[in-house]
């Protein structure tokens, strides 16, 4: 290993040495220089290029968004999707720190870190999505409390700070900063509660963004209950994301997770999945009526696809107690839920305004640059997680 004290002086060098010490994670067998990592770096570089191009030449030159379709892939996928993928953290943190359900403690660090990267992905993408990136901080000092977007912006900043606080013990531990560690432990329960409140609001706020569009959003998705549907689907997504990442890291990094943890998560998927299904069906019946599911062409198809992939199939897969003991079944169901909820966010963010926008003669399909930035952001989140898994004690107390 490189000794940084010779390059950066004893103080900084020592800290760097401690941070880059990966002895505790050797057993996970994480290699940095792999073809997969190279692909990730390549994608991140592509996104960096797009970001630069976008800042210099503007949104018109880099994206296909237009006056009738002002929000595109970046908002629908990176922001709505990225934040939904991060929902696992506050649930697990709440279970461990508030409800004292200690069995979930072994996955708390990983799910909080995963959320941190989800939110970071959303934050970076929206920075490039707004036309005036350099002043994206304006809402923080220019309050406008009628705006859901203002609420979202405030929450994004506060929650990123909260997630960083919740994750900081991992870093302080490595550096051996005991006073900082103690200070964080002292405020942990409060921070977790703050995080729970912020997350409940943040997840629902993203849906509340669309409350003001009764005449533009397709009735398949518009409902005055859309904030609550965003919240419940995010909870369902949260359980799935945590199971997915727990099983995946178990497979990739050679470590085992107690089966009863996964079983608990699978129960959560079934419960919130069923609730979500009832809500979605209820709003369609009480709103445009069930007939709309057959008569609205492409949009009906998207609604049915989203519900089949993200709700019906995974809930049926996990409905039996015996199937909740099978890790492979949980893995498949989790992936389906994640895809289904991401599809829901794409539907709300992109497709649901299509009938309005088409009516006035407008169309939208993301440009190559929009895809490249999004791909790069996902790569960034994966690589960031991998680096943290190598250098931080991400899986304490797990059997290995």
């Amino acid at each position: 290993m490189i000794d940084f004290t010779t390059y950066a002086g004893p103080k900084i060098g020592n800290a760097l040495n401690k941070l880059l010490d990966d002895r505790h994670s050797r057993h996970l067998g994480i290699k940095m220089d792999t073809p997969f990592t190279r692909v990730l770096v390549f994608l991140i570089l592509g996104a960096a290029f797009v970001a630069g191009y976008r800042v210099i030449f503007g949104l018109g030159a880099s994206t296909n968004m237009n006056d009738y379709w002002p929000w595109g892939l970046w908002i629908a996928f990176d922001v709505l999707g990225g934040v939904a993928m991060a929902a696992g953290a506050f649930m697990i943190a709440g279970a461990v720190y508030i409800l004292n359900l200690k069995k979930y403690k072994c996955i708390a660090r990983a799910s909080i870190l995963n959320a941190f990267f989800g939110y970071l992905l959303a934050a970076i993408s929206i920075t490039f999505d707004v036309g005036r990136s350099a002043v994206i901080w304006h809402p923080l000092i220019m309050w406008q409390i009628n705006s859901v977007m203002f609420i979202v912006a405030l929450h994004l900043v506060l929650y990123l700070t909260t997630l960083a606080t919740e994750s900081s013990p991992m870093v302080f531990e490595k550096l051996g900063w005991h006073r900082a560690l103690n200070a964080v432990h002292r405020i942990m329960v409060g921070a977790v509660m703050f995080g729970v409140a912020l997350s409940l609001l943040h997840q629902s706020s993203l849906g509340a963004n669309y409350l003001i569009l009764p005449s533009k959003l397709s009735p398949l998705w518009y409902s005055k209950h859309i904030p609550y549907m965003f919240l419940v689907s995010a909870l369902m997504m949260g359980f799935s994301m945590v199971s997915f990442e727990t099983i995946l890291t178990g497979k990739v990094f050679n470590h085992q997770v107690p089966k009863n943890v996964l079983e608990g998560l699978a129960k959560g998927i079934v419960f919130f999945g069923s609730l979500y299904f009832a809500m979605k069906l209820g709003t369609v019946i009480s709103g445009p009526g069930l007939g709309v599911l057959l008569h609205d062409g492409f949009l009906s198809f998207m609604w049915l696809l989203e519900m089949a992939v993200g709700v019906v199939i995974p809930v049926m897969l996990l409905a039996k107690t015996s199937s909740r003991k099978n890790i492979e079944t949980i893995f498949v169901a989790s992936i389906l839920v994640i895809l289904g909820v991401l599809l829901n966010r794409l539907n709300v963010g992109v497709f649901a305004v299509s009938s309005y926008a088409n009516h006035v003669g407008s169309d939208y399909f993301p440009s190559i640059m929009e895809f490249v930035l999004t791909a790069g952001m996902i790569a960034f989140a994966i690589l960031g997680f991998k680096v943290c898994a190598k250098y931080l004690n991400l899986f304490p107390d797990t059997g290995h």
Partner: protein
Amino acid sequence: MTISRRGFLKGVTGSAVVLAAGIPSVEAKMSTELPSEAVGLLYDATLCVGCKSCMVNCKTKNSVPGGALYKDGVVPGVVDSLLCRKSDKTEAMKSPPYETKTIAGNEGIWDASQDLSGDTLNIIKAYRNGTGEMKDSPTNGHAFFKQQCLHCISPACVSVCPPGALIKDPKSGIVYYDAYRCIGCRYCQLACPFNIPRYEWSSPWPEIRKCQLCRHRIAEGKYAACAEYCPTGATIFGKVTDLREEAKKRFAMKPGTIYDFPVQTFDSKSTSTRPVAAYADKIYGLTDAGGTQNLMLSAVSFELLGFSKDIPASALPDLTWAYIAKIPWVFLGVFLGGTSLYAITSRKNKNGTDKGDHHD
């Protein structure tokens, strides 16, 4: 855990009290009342001859300092935004933002806006059906209509703007834009039920563009350019209360009645005398999206002209306010509920065997 539970509970109760005390101060709900001195336009499509004089003058009169199309260079624009200050630039623009590349074969010759855009605040479009012979007839006829900001009484764009860059003047009710505040998120575009705000997509430091009812000219004692330069009285400027009465009067009149239509402004001395047309379904703007300060009359129904029929007749910001008003209670609920759950579950743990497991 190194903190005592009592100390922790004290802290939580304290913050809950602070939060609860903060709730009454959150009463910034948007007004749904017409401002006292609200001004607006009445556009009567049956008087419009499609000369587009309003469009020409809108563009030139707004391309001066203070106008809705006036723009700084990128660098001063960025600097003003970063320093959070209004632009104080007074230099004239080189040329109004003409759109000369929208039609093939028109390379820089004439301004040919096809739609509202980052460079066009006001547009006259034509409706055509069948042979197109009869003016103001839905079948085999033609008609003109005007698109621009309608200056909602309770504007969705103002309510959704995160840094408050879109503002409704409390007196005149004009919805205007403070560029230096804007972050360019385009939520106003999405939220506007009439799809009015437009974006400067090609600019690296884009602004939102919409009609600001010539606010800079009103400050000089003048009024909206489109009304001043309308030769037929199709667009008139006035107080909203007067315009509403005028619109209702025309709407109620028997078609064919000879009437003195005021030109330029509601209380103008010059009039144009002609028969009243048969107006279609409604006066547009009385109730749409909770009511707008600009009103429109037409002989061809607004739905046929392409105006959305799904816009609710109530103020749109109320839809989000119902959600936002609940937010303080979520904090309160989570902190009180969370604290009691924490207290209960930790006591259970303490009684059990699970000790010394707090290091995370």
